[in-house]
């Protein structure tokens, strides 16, 4: 496994460079916004990556809570299958928003269930806690990028740095929720920090639909310019977007892997240090 890392690193660097070239040179220039629109390739891909990482955090947290006993574990696995099935069924039996292919929705459903069981098989219960922490941390990094590139894009296009539009505002709230998750992890002095953090992650995930709905409805009442524009995307731009998404997904994977190894090593060291001080104190004369 460890040998694969440098190879993957070089491959990722190549893909990232290629994606950058595509974004800056190959992609067509947008009509109304001009060159600035190219920020879109980094802004949107960072957002998608952050969302996926936060979703992984949710799955890992659920598994940490549920795998403590086999009963809840089986219920959780059942729910994961059910959710996938419902999404796949919804793709074909319910009207889908325009511009979205039913096959894409169905694939997403299958991927959700697949991701759940992939994590279940590859990570022990204790390791899901590490995964949860890592995905939240890297997710916050990508989310920060979304919040930084958004205003940089908004300023030349709309003349203002921030518009409280639907997407930026929801991303800000998401960022706040997961930063509070990281703060809890940092400040918790309990030995059961993983349990508390997992609980908070569940609350955060439950909050997400409310965040999106409330801000969406608020915006329909009080419309504002939308950063990132609506409407359909030129297929050539979509192509470049997907290349950048692939590149950043690989990059995110490598960062998470490094952070994961670092965290596990840190926990081992802390345990060894605790053992060391324990044996020391039992050895020293009273």
């Amino acid at each position, binding site marked *: 496994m460890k040998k694969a890392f440098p190879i993957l690193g070089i491959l990722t660097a190549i893909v990232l460079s290629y994606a950058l070239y595509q974004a800056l040179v190959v992609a067509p220039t947008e009509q109304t916004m001009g060159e600035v629109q190219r920020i879109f390739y980094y802004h949107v891909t960072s957002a998608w990556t952050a969302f996926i990482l936060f979703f992984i955090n949710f799955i890992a947290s659920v598994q940490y809570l549920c795998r403590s006993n086999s009963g809840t574990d089986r219920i959780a696995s059942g729910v994961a299958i059910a959710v996938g099935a419902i999404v796949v069924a919804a793709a074909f039996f319910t009207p889908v928003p325009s511009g979205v292919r039913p096959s894409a929705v169905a694939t997403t459903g299958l991927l959700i269930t697949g991701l759940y069981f992939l994590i279940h098989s590859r990570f022990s219960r204790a390791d899901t806690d590490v995964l949860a922490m890592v995905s939240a941390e890297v997710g916050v990094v990508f989310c920060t990028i979304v919040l930084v590139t958004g205003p940089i894009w908004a300023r030349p296009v709309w003349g203002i740095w921030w518009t409280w539009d639907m997407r930026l505002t929801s991303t800000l709230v998401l960022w706040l929720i997961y930063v509070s998750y990281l703060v809890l992890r940092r400040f918790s002095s*309990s030995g059961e920090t993983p*349990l508390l953090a997992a609980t908070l992650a569940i609350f*955060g995930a439950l909050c997400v639909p*409310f965040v999106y709905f409330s801000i969406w*409805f608020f915006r329909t009442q009080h419309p504002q310019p939308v950063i990132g524009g609506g409407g359909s995307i030129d297929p050539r731009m979509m192509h470049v977007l997907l290349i950048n998404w692939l590149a950043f997904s690989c990059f995110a994977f490598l960062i998470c892997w490094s952070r994961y190894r670092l965290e596990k090593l840190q926990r081992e060291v802390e345990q060894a240090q605790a053992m060391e001080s324990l044996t020391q104190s039992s050895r020293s004369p009273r």
Partner: protein
Amino acid sequence: MSAPTGITRATLLKDLRLEWRSKDAINSMLFFSLLVVVVFSFSFDPNAEESRRIAGGLIWVAILFAAIVALNQTWAREIRNQVLDAYRVSPAPANSLFLAKAIGNFIFVSVLEALMTPLFVVFYQLRPLGPVWQLLIVAALGTWALVVNGTFFAAMSLRTRSREIMLPLLLFPISIPALLGMVQATTNILTGEGARVWIALLLSYDLVFTTACLILFETVLNAE
């Protein structure tokens, strides 16, 4: 009466009785709420036209700050007397304790609201154009949204460094959709517009998070 409701009722009545006898917390909280309203009135000129339009937001932010102070001492008595350890080893369901605390906080914050709202109405010369009974529903749903999560996060903050700052730090982000709902509903009722969607949002938020708190409180209580 079944055991869980009996425990809830007993704990709640005990808390209320203790608060009533000591009156320390109540009196200082009431005075704090009054101060908050006055400070806001100085900061946001009540005579300006804009202030009347944001009065809904001002009321709820003021209530939020007062609620944080109240929520922070939710578990103080239990910690002092090692009640939580006793609760952990007893067969009593953790939910009952949580519910008692949450309802107690709800009553407490409602008392504060009952003081602050008339003051706001007077200072800002508010005349609701919409139905006032809807305001009561919004007040109840909104207060419960803050209190149910606040009581839960107060328990989570017990085993953290900087316990007092941890509670608002955890509570505020999660409460943002509910806050938006409360403020928009209140503002809409004051200006005579429809608030039904926001009330529905608050109701579903309350249902989802009350369920989550009831299911997960046992886990938090037993966390070391």
